[in-house]
């Protein structure tokens, strides 16, 4: 299934939402038409209060999937359930299934650290550690068992080149990462995530704390990572979603809980949305 529209009455009740199939052929060429992550009936509650209700969607390998919607509609909660960062929040309960390459990530057998290595995360505010640029990249690698100096150097170089930071920092790899500009810090955080060779990158409003120029650079970087990584990006910025995403999911708040209203090819969400709420939101009439 690719396209999904919430039957608003059905989601309000207990029944499972209705699905419709969209045309596979319309998928972008970089995407493999099989899901890397399948989310089935995900409900997430904080201290018994639902923040996200019965969300089901597929995230396709190598594609950029944008999550759009107003603040508080559960985009961040959704992202942090995909790498089980939600485990850190006391009182957070997750129901439903999340299949990563077919394996339920809530299985007893799942190695959470290995999962998080394969599903990297970029936060809204750049969060380099207060270490040198080099240590920021090397330390997680060492913790995941990369010990040889040559391998570490190669990984540092490769990831910095990939995020376009190499030329800017090659002479000061041992300088504090916090001395970099905000945009450079965010690219360093992306480099730190991709140095671990993940399959998926989760990005939570990665540009919203940056100035417009840095934001454009990071956005171009995200576009250049398409195909190599499966990217899920939560964003307020509709123009940005439209520019970088292959797929888009529109979240909305219903009864104080986030629900998925519509999920489809990005172009279709923006140009011919099927749900009236989506249409109102993407045209700026609501939200």
């Amino acid at each position: 299934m690719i396209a999904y529209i919430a039957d608003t009455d059905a989601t309000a009740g207990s029944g499972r939402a209705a699905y419709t199939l969209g045309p596979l052929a319309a998928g972008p060429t970089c995407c493999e038409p099989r899901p890397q992550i399948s989310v089935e009936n995900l409900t997430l509650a904080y201290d018994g209060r639902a923040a996200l209700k019965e969300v089901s969607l597929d995230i396709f390998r190598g594609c950029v999937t944008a999550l759009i919607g107003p603040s508080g509609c559960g985009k961040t909660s959704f992202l942090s359930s995909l790498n089980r960062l939600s485990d850190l929040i006391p009182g957070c309960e997750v129901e439903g299934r999340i299949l990563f390459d077919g394996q339920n990530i809530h299985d007893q057998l799942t190695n959470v650290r290995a999962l998080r290595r394969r599903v990297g995360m970029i936060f809204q505010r750049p969060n380099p550690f207060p270490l040198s640029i080099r240590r920021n990249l090397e330390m997680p690698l060492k913790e995941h068992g990369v010990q040889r100096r040559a391998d570490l150097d190669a990984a540092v170089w490769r990831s910095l080149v990939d995020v376009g930071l190499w030329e800017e920092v090659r002479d000061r790899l041992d300088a504090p990462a916090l001395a970099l500009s905000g945009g450079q810090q965010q690219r360093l955080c992306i480099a730190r995530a991709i140095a671990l060779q993940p399959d998926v990158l989760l990005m939570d409003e990665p540009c919203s704390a940056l100035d417009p120029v840095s934001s454009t650079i990071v956005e171009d970087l995200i576009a250049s990572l398409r195909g190599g990584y499966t990217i899920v990006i939560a964003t307020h910025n509709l123009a940005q979603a439209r520019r970088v995403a292959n797929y888009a999911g529109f979240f909305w708040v219903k009864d104080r809980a986030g629900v998925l209203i519509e999920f489809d090819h990005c172009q279709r969400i923006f140009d011919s949305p099927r749900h009236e709420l989506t249409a109102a939101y993407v045209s700026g009439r609501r939200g």
Partner: protein
Amino acid sequence: MTLSNRSSSSRSRRDTRLVAAVATAALGSSAIFVLIVGFLLKESWPALSTIGPARFLFDPAWRPTEGLFGLAPMLSASLAASVGAVILATPLGVASAIFCRHYAPPPIGWIHRWSMALLSGVPSVVIGLWGLTAIVPLIGRFEPPGASLLAGILILTVMITPTIALMSGAALDSLPDAYGRGAVALGLSREATLAHVLLPAARGGVAAGILLAAARALGETMAIVMVSGNVVQAPLSLFDPVRMLTANIALEMAYATGSHRASLFVSGLMLTALVIALAAAAWRLSGDHCHG
């Protein structure tokens, strides 16, 4: 209009009075410090000018009535006891801060934190009593007499561990959540997150805690008088009875006169200088946690 004018002018008058009160209090407390240092200088000046600073360090013994003013054995005892206590208390204090934030179940962590805070407030004479009746006889069983540098180190360790634990804990608490979440999102274990991210990020505050603890250890008097034996000699072994600079002042001030009295003020001045240097270093480090 009139009403609002009046109320805002009375507010600004209240503000002015508050500022004046706060400024007076602040100036008053810093003036007390300046006065104390000035007083120490004034009282030690006769000794510094007639005996000279070098003899306090290099005279072979402390016999002030016979004209020998060597403070070196007591200075070395003070330093040895403080360094020893810092070496023991640092791992204990840092481990305790980590334990109650990252490993202990919340109620236990809470109890632990409170007991640390309470321990830091126990009067030193009480800790000295405990040292005198528990630690000294215990050491005496292996190496008589028991009252020794080691007893002093152990007592000081008990007294400064809470300082290090509380300061390290505050430094860990002040770190942004983003470090911990970022580390976990990279798949780092709890140990790696602590060792490679959180502790390095908090190291300014931890170091400040260690220096303040060292300053407290250097300045401690009562408990040390009770357990360390008070023999003026340079410590050659952990089991030697020793006398710290602070203890020397407390023990001899009552009957000292003339240059003997003035040279006790010199040792006070020495201690104050050491403690100021440590506090200044702590202050610099604690304002400096963002760089690495």
